[in-house]
């Protein structure tokens, strides 16, 4: 019997699993596939929660979780992520301005070392270098965008050693080849002549998955420059490294992971319907019961399947089928333009300050079901720049409530 069943293996679920396991709880993480960290820049953006928390309305996930949770959650994140060598830099009050693969600038609060070294407020002559034949990072786009924003950077192009497969390479192909056998000397011989007279070089984020910290250190010393990585089109290695680090930390802390099957909520009929038993996990061999003292939903939002929208304009949460309120007219869900805010961004599960999903009258559906992360209603994570911060702080609060 578990103390806690956590559903979802994205950032919120992995953090919740770690928080709970570190508190001595017996934890099983059930996930239908993986979360969306492969789409992530692998940094933490908190929004203006440290500078100006009053901008968040009372029903915002940050306020429901409690602003007093922000600092301890960040402190615990640092303990989790650093042993895997990712070495997160930054603080909650200021932001690092990092270049993106389209030449835009992303303001993040915490970034792994290989990205943090690309902070545009650092001095020195910067060169943005693509890798020949790699489609998912274009130095021309980066250079145009950064120059338009007042950063005078140069472009360069770097070859891969001979003997690579003559097919299209994904970032993960390059990274796993580097992990297996890092060709440091040859890379340095090929790249050095093209990087003369620059102080810092930005390259696509392909420097390994498991051994990225060592590869970065080795390449910097071979080339004699400061290197930084820029996340590519997905799969995005910085997100995958964070996923890997948190997953390993959770397993090391004793958490069990059941990956693949869909999870459906189980309700305790003998409790008068006020308690959940756990979930049924729909494995190919039939349903498998995963029960626990409490369930934490970390199943994500529109993208990850934490809720599903039907053609008729009804929206339901995926594990317990909790109703989610939304206008019946689907036209009211979306904005005018793709790149811009959309009303559905704020859709999600309503919770109380104990992180319990509630009905429209504010009553919890079950005493022992809690929710966190992208599933929660009431935030425009994109405009606020708060996506990872909400995952972190609400996972912390949900675990605390579930174990108390």
């Amino acid at each position, binding site marked *: 019997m578990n103390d806690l069943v956590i559903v979802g293996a994205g950032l919120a679920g992995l953090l919740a699993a770690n928080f709970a396991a570190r508190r001595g709880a017996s934890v099983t993480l059930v996930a239908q596939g993986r979360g969306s960290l492969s789409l992530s820049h692998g940094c933490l953006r908190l929004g203006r929660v440290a500078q100006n928390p009053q901008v968040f309305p009372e029903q915002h996930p940050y306020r429901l979780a409690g602003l007093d949770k922000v600092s301890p959650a960040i402190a615990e994140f640092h303990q989790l992520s650093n042993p895997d060598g990712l070495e997160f830099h930054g603080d909650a009050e200021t932001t690092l301005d990092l270049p993106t693969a389209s030449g835009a*600038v992303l303001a993040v609060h915490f970034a792994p070392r290989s990205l943090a070294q690309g902070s545009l407020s650092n001095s020195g002559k910067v060169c943005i270098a693509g890798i020949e034949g790699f489609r998912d990072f274009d130095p021309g786009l980066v250079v145009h965008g950064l120059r338009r924003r007042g950063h005078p950077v140069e472009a360069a192009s770097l070859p891969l050693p001979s003997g690579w497969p003559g097919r299209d390479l994904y970032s993960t192909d390059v990274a796993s080849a580097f992990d297996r056998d890092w060709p440091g000397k040859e890379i340095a011989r090929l790249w050095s002549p093209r990087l003369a007279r620059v102080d810092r070089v930005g390259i696509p984020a392909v420097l390994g998955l498991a051994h990225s910290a060592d590869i970065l250190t080795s390449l910097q010393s071979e080339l004699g420059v400061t290197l930084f990585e820029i996340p590519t089109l*997905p799969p995005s290695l910085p997100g995958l490294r964070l996923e890997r680090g948190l997953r390993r930390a959770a397993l090391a802390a004793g958490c069990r992971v059941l990956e693949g099957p869909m999870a459906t909520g189980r309700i305790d009929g003998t409790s008068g319907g006020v308690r959940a038993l756990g979930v049924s996990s729909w494995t190919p061999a039939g349903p498998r019961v995963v029960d626990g003292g409490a369930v934490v939903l970390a199943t994500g939002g529109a*993208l990850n*399947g934490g809720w599903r929208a039907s053609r008729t304009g009804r929206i339901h949460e995926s594990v317990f089928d909790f109703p989610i309120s939304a206008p019946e007219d*689907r036209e009211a*869900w979306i904005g005018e333009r*793709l790149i811009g805010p959309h009303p559905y961004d704020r859709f999600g599960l309503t919770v109380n300050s104990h992180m319990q999903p509630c009905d429209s009258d504010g009553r919890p559906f079950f005493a022992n079901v809690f929710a966190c992360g992208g599933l929660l209603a009431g935030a425009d994570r994109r405009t606020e720049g708060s996506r990872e911060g909400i995952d972190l702080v609400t996972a912390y609060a949900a675990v605390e409530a579930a174990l108390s």
Partner: protein
Amino acid sequence: VVCECELVTAEAIQAALDASPTIDLDDLRRDLRLGMGPCQAAFCAYRSAGLLGGREPGLDPSPGLRSFLEERWRGIKPLVWGHTLRQVELNRRIYQDLLGLDDR
């Protein structure tokens, strides 16, 4: 391969640009079906914008990239529910959250 859904290669794009020069990705879409598959340009919009920029060193490809994505959005707007909604959200994760395109 630049567009995996419709199997459009870099060579096909270069040949189309040689035959009728353009800086508009939507012209390439009409020629080659670029970006018209299930992922609605999630991956090929960026890659093909890079190819256009490589041919015209003075051209900043990102305004064209943005308008190409908006053009695809107009086509799927009436269908945004179920899996299409997830697909739209995937494109926004990539272009807004990861690449930082904004509405300016």
